[in-house]
């Protein structure tokens, strides 16, 4: 059962990384980051099951809180990016640099 859990963590890690590397939309990026957090959380739980210790579950709980804490300001920033730049594409974010160059 622990092997299956580690395989699930691998799948989540891979899917998260693939979403971040391949997709263009920023909101899909954040979804990928959540999947990466989940991969770490699953490994912590596999450790808890392997050593029969609640510490791994405590770590998983803290990771859940941290991923929520990371997501809220990220989504606020995303709405701000949409308002400022009118796009949600990762490639569009290089406009920040160009705009700064034009202003300067």
């Amino acid at each position, binding site marked *: 059962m622990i*092997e299956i859990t580690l395989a699930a963590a691998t*799948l989540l890690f891979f899917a998260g990384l693939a*979403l971040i*590397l391949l997709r263009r939309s920023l909101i899909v990026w954040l*979804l990928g980051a959540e999947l990466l957090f989940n991969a770490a959380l699953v490994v912590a*739980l596999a450790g808890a099951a*392997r050593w029969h210790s*609640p510490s791994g*579950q405590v770590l998983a709980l803290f990771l859940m809180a941290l991923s929520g804490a990371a997501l809220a300001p990220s989504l606020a920033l995303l709405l701000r990016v949409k308002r400022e730049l009118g796009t949600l594409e990762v490639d569009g974010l290089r406009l920040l640099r160009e705009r700064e160059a034009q202003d300067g």
Partner: protein
Amino acid sequence: MIALGLLLLVLLAGLLFGVLLLRDTLHAVVAVAAALGVLAILFYLLGAPFLAAMEILLYLGAILVLFLFALMLLGPEARAASAKRSWRRGWPWAALVLLALALALAALLWQALVIDEPIQAIAPARLGHALFGPFLWWSEAVAVLLFVVIAAVLVLHAGEDKHD
């Protein structure tokens, strides 16, 4: 139990593959929600009933709803734009790197491990004792962090208002 675990693994793989390929962001969010539901069942099988409940309450109930709110605030045109041009520039190179990573991970998992450890459920009471015993200060630190996050979001929002 192993058979059920394998079934859940296949289901998870299918859903994550769907997330990667679905062009509409809303559909991707719903597929992630289903994948997290599958994970919650896996947590329960792994002897973590409290974490299984928290996965559903926190991830499905809060975090993914936050995503849906963000999609709602962004409006339908953002969804349509991301559906039209969904892959990044230069994605074949990234796909190549990912393929190499997938092969490496598969090789690692293949050699690894048969961990023949019996699963014992860790009751929520034991987890509570750990949280409010040896990890008490860490719990407080997480609480402070969440408070700081609320303040940060309020500051970001206030900046937006001023800008308007």
